[in-house]
Structures are given as structure tokens and as C-alpha cells.
């Protein structure tokens, strides 16, 4: 666990597209970068030639696209400057067979700690439904991925990160998540909240009170263990959220406007790669705030 001050500059890669989803991603990334004094790498990924299996490559059109992308990047960059924000940024154009692939390659190239993308389009009521890009990224990234929910572009950058919430499960993967959450909270100078979600979704006939009690007790133990590992200087709290379903449990919690949630990837993921588990997917649907998915490490 290293402190942000003695580590090399944190870098954040944001996958930019010149639409609302891209604007959401850029706004969130800028906010995160500003809060954690990170360097922002704004990346546009264009389809590479290898993508073409039917349509012949046309040099003229490729150039047109590149120029158009430059313009888009320049506009995006100007919009950042307008706010007079103190965020260092670099603009890049990359070629890859897919957006996700290009972003992961860029993250490796820059040694970035985080990839930010717009979560989705068409999610109901402003909540996130995962789009195809985010989905592909979540299935293949070995770098933490932040999903900017629809409307992130309306959150003011100066809002910063007011609190970091780590949704701690009871299963393997929590260590990596805890690590990442602490690092991020320290970098962003934000308090950390550990949350354990407990859903009591049992068939009728079982003593609900008892079940709730045992689950809650178990969750409390997990949180307690997690808290013991936290560095002392960190302002941390722990909460158990209960509800009949994961959705209800999430709704029962209070959320800051400037909050960011970290979740670990599913146990189904190959080690060091992401995969959104069912709990995390349910959370994503309910969360009014951005979510960062952290890949689990190889350690059992």
C-alpha cells in the first residue's frame, strides 16, 4: 500500500467519444483526476484496419476520421480549460480492433491506475445499464474500470470526491478491493466507508429474523476484520446495509453527490481480470453515483 505522494504520478485513462456518454466519462475522469492530483490521458480509439473484413480500407477516409477526432479531442480539451481547472491532461488517438481493447492497451502503455468510460446509454431513469463498450471492458480489463453513470457531466468537477465507499463482500477478492479503496481514498483525500450489503432473500418458512441476525453478524465480523487492516491515519467508517434484496440494501444507504463506490469483480473472473458479478450488477442498476470495478488479484 503506497501513499500517492511518494508514488509516481497517478494516471487516469478516459475513453472519450464525442457524445453524451463520452462527456459523462470525461467529466467523471476530470473530477477523479482533480481530486487525486492525477494526470488525465484522454484517449480516442479509432477502428484499426484489421477491423475491416468487408469494407476496403480507404486512406482518405482514415485521414478524415483522424482529423475529425483531433477536432473532437481539441474541443473536449477546451471545455476542460474553460472551467479553469487544474488538471493536467494529454490527448491521444489510438487504433484498435475494439474500443475496449484500445483503452486497455492505452492503460498499459501509460501505466494508468484507472480506466474511465461512460456506463451506458438508454438506462432507465438516469440509472446505469451497462452499454456494450463498458460490458466488453468489464470482461477483459485487468485495470480498474470506472463507469460514469448518465448525468455525470452535470456534476461539477469542483465537487471532488467527498467519500469513497468500498462494497466489501465476504469472499475472495476483498483484499485487492480493500487495497485499491484505501489507495484511492488517500489519494483523493476523502474518508472511506466500508459497506457490507446483506440481502435477506429467503424462501418463506425460514425464520427471517434469525437469518437476518446471522447474516448481519457475519457482515459485522467481515467489516471488523477489514477495519483492522486499515492504516490508522485514514478516516474510515463501516456500515452494514440490509434489505430484502441487494437493490433495497443499496437504496437504504445514504449517498453523497461526490461519492464514488468501489466493488470487486466477480469470482467468475479469471484472476487479474474483471467480471461484474451479480451483486455488483444489481448495485450498478441502483447506484446514483459512479462505480469503480476492481479486478481481483491472483492471491487466493
Amino acid at each position, binding site marked *: 500500500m503506497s501513499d500517492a505522494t511518494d508514488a509516481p504520478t497517478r494516471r487516469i485513462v478516459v475513453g472519450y467519444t464525442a457524445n453524451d456518454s463520452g462527456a459523462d466519462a470525461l467529466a467523471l475522469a476530470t473530477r477523479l483526476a482533480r481530486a487525486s492530483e492525477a494526470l488525465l490521458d484522454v484517449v480516442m480509439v*479509432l477502428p*484499426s484496419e484489421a477491423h475491416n*473484413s*468487408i469494407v476496403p480500407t480507404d486512406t482518405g477516409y482514415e485521414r478524415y476520421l483522424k482529423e475529425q477526432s483531433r477536432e473532437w479531442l*481539441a474541443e473536449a480539451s477546451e471545455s476542460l480549460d474553460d472551467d479553469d481547472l487544474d488538471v493536467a491532461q494529454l490527448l491521444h488517438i489510438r487504433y484498435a480492433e475494439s474500443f475496449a481493447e484500445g483503452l486497455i492497451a492505452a492503460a498499459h502503455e501509460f501505466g494508468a491506475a484507472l480506466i474511465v468510460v461512460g456506463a451506458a446509454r438508454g438506462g432507465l431513469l438516469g440509472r446505469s445499464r451497462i452499454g456494450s463498450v463498458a460490458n466488453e471492458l468489464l470482461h477483459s480489463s485487468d485495470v480498474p474500470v470506472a463507469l460514469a453513470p448518465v448525468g455525470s457531466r452535470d456534476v461539477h468537477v469542483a465537487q471532488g470526491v467527498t467519500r469513497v465507499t468500498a462494497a466489501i463482500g465476504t469472499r475472495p477478492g476483498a483484499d485487492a478491493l480493500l487495497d485499491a479503496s484505501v489507495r484511492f481514498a488517500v489519494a483523493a483525500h476523502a474518508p472511506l466507508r466500508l459497506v457490507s450489503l446483506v440481502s435477506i432473500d429467503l424462501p418463506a418458512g425460514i425464520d427471517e429474523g434469525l437469518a437476518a441476525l446471522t447474516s448481519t453478524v457475519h457482515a459485522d465480523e467481515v467489516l471488523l476484520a477489514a477495519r483492522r487492516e486499515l492504516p490508522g491515519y485514514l478516516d474510515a467508517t463501516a456500515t452494514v446495509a440490509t434489505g430484502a434484496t441487494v437493490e433495497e440494501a443499496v437504496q437504504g444507504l445514504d449517498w453523497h453527490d461526490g461519492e464514488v463506490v468501489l466493488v470487486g469483480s466477480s469470482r467468475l473472473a479469471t484472476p487479474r481480470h474483471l467480471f461484474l458479478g451479480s451483486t455488483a450488477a444489481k448495485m450498478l442498476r441502483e447506484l446514483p453515483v459512479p462505480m469503480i470495478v476492481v479486478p481481483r488479484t491472483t492471491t487466493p
Partner: protein
Amino acid sequence: MTHQPEPHAPLTEATVAVDGSEHGITKKGLSAGSVGLIGAIVIGISCIAPAYTLTAALGPTVSEVGVQVPAIILVGFIPMLLVAFGYRELNRRMPDSGTSFTWATRAFGPWIGWLAGWGLVAATILVLSNLAGIAVDFLFLLISQVTGNPELADLATNPFINVAVCLLFVLGATWVSYRDMQTTQKLQYWLVGFQVVVLVLFAVAALVEVANGNAFDATAIELSWFNPFAVESFSAFAAGLSLSIFIFWGWDVTLTMNEETKGSEKTPGRAATITVVTIVVLYLLIAVALIAYAGVGTGEFGLGNPDIQDNVFFHLAGPILGPLAVLVSLAVLTSSASSLQSTFVSPARTLLAMGHYGALPEKFAKVSPRFFTPGYATIVSAVVASVFYAVMRFLSEDVLWDTITALGMMICFYYGITAFACVWFFRRIWWRSVRNFFFTLLFPLVGGVILGVLFFTTLIDSMNPDYGSGSNIFGVGLVFVLGMVVLLSGVAIMLWQAWKRPAFFRGETLSRAAAED
């Protein structure tokens, strides 16, 4: 685009260093796993779409030149090749998504440039509607073959059902093109391989039937089939040629694609050569086999029968292949589908360039931020192609046939202008080297003259009401009417745009120029 000054976007130094800002794309920017030799050949064959092309063009060509189809196929390649050389020179010097439009504007100014762009867009929109029309026929044929109910194939002749299904096809193709959804290379290899194998099987089966004495109208193969001078009249020769230009259309892309790919100096040339040899052999084989099997008479399955001419495979696959005919339907369907997608790209990109340079409303220059395709231009192309097809289907029973002939004419028109643009643009450097002499003067000039002659001959001949399928409007051949409507509406829209957007027509956005070195 190349001639616009690079917008000096405030890119950071690191980015400039990484991405390069000199000429748009740097080699570094392209992924290593780019389209290789086989990939280029596959794309080339899939753009030409031999299964679709032959079924659409064989009948009309037979009706013009009779048994001399093989000769016409061989000769038709010559102007195509000559113009393609000019195309390649221009593409090297000023690569631009507007291709013919941009080049002709640079060489001859905005008015001719605009019309060249119009010719390209019109030709590709004509072929889009034709492609979709052929696909509809084969879809119903396929369904009837699979279900064993021959009546289903006749549903394709009901204009309402036909137009409705056709519009659905175009809608699907638009969706796919807009989102730039391409199959994987592997799948595309299989599809193209399948197409070639089925065509060879089809031809061989026809020859076997001939050998077994089961042919519909066995015609002895003669050397004179390959002699272009055996064609009865110059008119027929010209009409046949302009059709055979259509069958090679799309081949030029292999000559210019991936020229910028690292270490690929030889790839485009090789890919183009292998593609064209494959295509020519395939065409000759099928043409010879089908003529030997069915003859050029007007009997039920004769290639001279106007009822089967606009889609010969549709009618001949069953008698020749029996139960295996379903393979031909599949091959033509997949061939049309891939070709629909690659064909969609070219009017869209030209319209995009026209919008970019202010020759059309700016909306046309819009690129989809998510799919990086010319979104608006793609949708406009689709709408125009659909309307065109719907109107034509109700106007004429032989719509497919007449659009193919009109198409050949439009291709001659804009390819001809492109060839002359090449000659004129390079006028100051013709004599710099032997290579320049051949590739920037002689080849494109000869090619351009041939296409010019073809264009005017076809135009004049097509006034005859008996021309092509014999459809006519007020005693004037439908092909002529089609050609004129397309060209004159182009002129009308050009004048309207010149009034609305004078900057382009004053040469302010894209100026005339000539190569100096």
C-alpha cells in the same frame, strides 16, 4: 483531408510526438495486425461479389452480344484496368474520401467535380437498389427451396411484397453500415470461399450436364466466343462493354487499399492481380458453361429469354443443380449481403466529402461519434436507394435489367471523368519519367476515351425504345430516360447548391491545382 491545413488543435506535445501530425495517419497509428494479402483478396472478391454480379449482368450481356460474352468479359477488363491505374495515381497523390469528386474538382474545377461526385453517388445508389432487388428474389427462392414449395418463389414477383421485403433489406444493410458491424475476417474468408466454390460447382455441373446430353440447349463451345470482333455491331459491342465494366466494378479498391500498411509495398499489387485473375477465370468459366448448357436462344431456359435475363442463376440453378440449387441461392444471398455493405460505404464517403467541402449541406459531413461512420450520408443514401427501387419496381417489370444497363452508363460517366482528371492533374509532369508517361498520361487517357465513347454510344442507342429490356416511356427507351433523369436531376441539384452555397463553386473550399513534382 489532405489539402486542408491541419487544424492546429491544442494537442499536447506528448501526443503530437506519439501520434504524429504531419499527414494524418502515421504508420505507428495503425495496428500491426492489419489486412494482409489474403485479407485484401477476400475484400476485393467480396466487393466485386461475383455471384451477384454475374446473375445480374449475364442476361443483359447475352442479349447484347450473344455468344461473345467471354470475349466481352476479357475486353471489358482493359478500360477498367487503364482507369484503375489513373485512380491509383490520384489516390497516392491526394488520398481523400471524396475520390472522384475531389480529384475532378482539383483538376477541372467545382462544376465538373460536382457532377463526377454525383455520378459516383448515383451509380452506387443504383447498384444498391439492384443488389437489394436480387437479394429479395433469392431470399424467396431459398425459402421455396427449403420448404419445397415452389409457389413461394413467385411471391417475389408481387410488387408490394417485393418492395416491402426489399426495403427491409435496405434497412438492415443501413443499420449494419451505420454501426460499422463487420463480420470477423475468418467468417468473411469462409463466405467468400463458399461463394467461389459454389460458382465453380455450378459451372462444372452445367458442363457435366452438357456432356451427358441433358443440357437444355447444348451449344458447342467455339473459339469465336472469345473473339470480340465477332460481335455483330459496334452498338452491341459498346453496350456489352459497358455491362462488363459493371462486372469488374469494385475491383479497383484492391489496387489502392492498404497502400499505407507497413511493409506492404507489394501487397496491393499482388492482391489486385490475384483478385482479378480469380474473377476473370470464374466469369469465363461460368459464362462458357451456362452458354453451353442453355444456349442464347429465347426458349424457357435460354439465356436469350427476356423473362430470365435479369436474374439468370435464379432460373438456371434448379435445372442444373437439382436439389443442390439451394447452394446457389445461399451464395448469391451472402454475396449480395457483403456487397451491400461495402457498396454502402462509397456513396456515403463521397457525400461526406461533398458536405465537408461545402458542395452539399454540412450535415453530410457528420461522422457518428460512436461508430465512426458517415452517419447522415449513409441514411440519405439508403433512403434514396429505397425510393428509387420502389418507384422503378412499379414502373417496370424489368427493373433489375434496366438499372444494370443504366448503371454501366453512370460508371462510364464518372470513371471517365476520373481518368481525364488524372491526365489533366498530372499534366506538368507527364514527361518527367517513363513511368509518369504511362501511368499519368497514356493509360488513363486511353481508358478515359474508351469510357467516354461507351458512355455516349450507350446514351444515344438507349433512346431506341427497344433498347435493353424494351421498356419505354413515351416511345423513348427506359434506360435513356433513367440516365437522363439521373444526370439532369444532378445538374438541377448542383445549380440549387451553387445558389445556396456559392463558396464551393467559387473554388474557395477546394481549389484547382496541378501536380508539380
